[in-house]
């Protein structure tokens, strides 16, 4: 009873808000065919990047609103794919993390594939409050550790979230940095420290 009321109450405002429509299958198929026909490899950006993996397909087909059951199962798969450091150490040096967070380098056709990839963090998040040039695609991470503590569980959460954001929100806008091979365990550890170390400016 309460449930139906709740659902009805939730549905009402939804009806008045224009939701992003899920993909239109016929035009989506045409779009994919055109993408395959009309792109060329350049630098490190090879044509295989145009192919969707399972998560991308589900998100693309549902306008980033997958059915809950499917999302849950796929999120579990993504979480199972996270590889933690063998020594169990999840916190590195926040100063190194800050450097990584600043860098947006990597993976474009103009990037040297031999150079290390940046974390791209400030592109989308507020982190150290001294850095004013932060994006707003993702939430502010200022005081991340101050609000949550740095328990082993929280370290594991932060590590896995950076490694594979889709483990917690299947169609998150955030890249899967570990899964994609962009950041290695050393680098992710530094970013965990930036978020959770009490000495990090994030938590001052």
């Amino acid at each position, binding site marked *: 009873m309460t449930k139906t009321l709740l659902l009805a109450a939730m549905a009402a405002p939804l009806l008045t808000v224009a939701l*992003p429509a899920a*993909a*239109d299958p016929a*035009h*989506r198929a*045409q*779009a*994919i065919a*055109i*993408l395959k*026909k*009309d*792109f*060329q*490899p*350049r630098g490190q*950006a*090879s*044509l295989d*990047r*145009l*192919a*969707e993996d399972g*998560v*991308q397909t589900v*998100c*693309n087909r549902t*306008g980033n609103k997958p059915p809950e059951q499917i999302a849950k199962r796929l999120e579990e798969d993504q979480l199972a794919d996270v590889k933690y450091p063998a020594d169990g150490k999840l916190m590195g040096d926040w100063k190194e993390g800050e450097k990584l967070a600043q860098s947006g380098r990597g*993976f*474009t*056709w*103009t990037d040297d594939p031999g150079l290390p990839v940046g974390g791209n963090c*400030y*592109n*989308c998040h*507020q982190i150290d*409050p*001294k*850095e*004013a*040039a*932060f*994006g*707003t*695609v993702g939430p*502010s991470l*200022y*005081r991340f550790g101050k609000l949550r503590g740095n328990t082993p569980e929280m370290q594991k959460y932060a590590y896995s979230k950076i490694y594979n954001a*889709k483990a917690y929100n299947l169609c998150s*806008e955030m*890249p*899967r940095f570990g899964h*994609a*091979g*962009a950041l290695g365990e050393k680098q992710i550890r530094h970013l965990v420290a930036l978020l959770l170390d009490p000495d990090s400016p994030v938590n001052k």
Partner: protein
Amino acid sequence: MKRSLIGALCVMAVAGGTFAQAPKKPAPKAPAQVAPVEAAEAKDAATLEFEKFRAEMEESNPAELFEMKGEEQWKTRRGPKNVSLAESCDLGQGVGKVEGAYVRMPRYFADADAVMDAERRIVWCMVEKQGFKFADIAARPFANENFTPDITNLVTYVAGHSRNMKIAVPLDDPKVREAWEIGKEIAAYRAGPYDFSCNTCHGSDNKRIRMQNLPNISTPRGALMGVQGWPGYRMTGGVMLTHQWRMGDCFRQQRFPQPKYASDAVADLLTYMIGNANGQVYKGPGIKR
């Protein structure tokens, strides 16, 4: 004189740390955030300076130099067939007519059986009417510090003849509507190492990357922001760049491979974006940071 002004501005902006626009809205408010607000104000000053400079420059817009070159090239008999575009190229308003043509593209051209944006159409004319080789044009389609291709001048010339006109992509044409629908799907298509689509950055309101505001191209206002100022004279490097170039640079940052020059994919995406800006006024070739 103009050059030195541009140089001075570039140096200033570099010193400021970013060319990106400052946000219209202040940083999200939270306690103990004095530092970022101060820094944001410093960037705002740089932005204001740029806006002032741009307003002054629009009186003597550097794009006009490219328009003049483009006009000469439009009217001159060129290519293996020794024909001018003015006497052979139909941009949808009749052979040789450039007035209002830019804001009415992309459109469907029966002779090419394709929906074409302005740049793609002019390339088609250069190939079909003047006898230039497509591969030669596509080999160096965009400007760099040392080189501006003819096609960039021509596009800028044509765009200049739609200055202060209303954008009117013919979306009631079923072929154009279909291109719009496909373009919409291309904009939504997530793939690549970072799972990005166009919409990751340009699908919702009031977002920014670093300090750069991100227009939401699904809305009329955001789509207009994506159209306005292209082709544009870019302060960074001092080069004239087209809307086709801008689409390619988005795909680069999306970590996608490169769209082929003057292809269906780019025309469809442009149809989606420019079509969404229909009814609003295009101000002509502009200045970009």
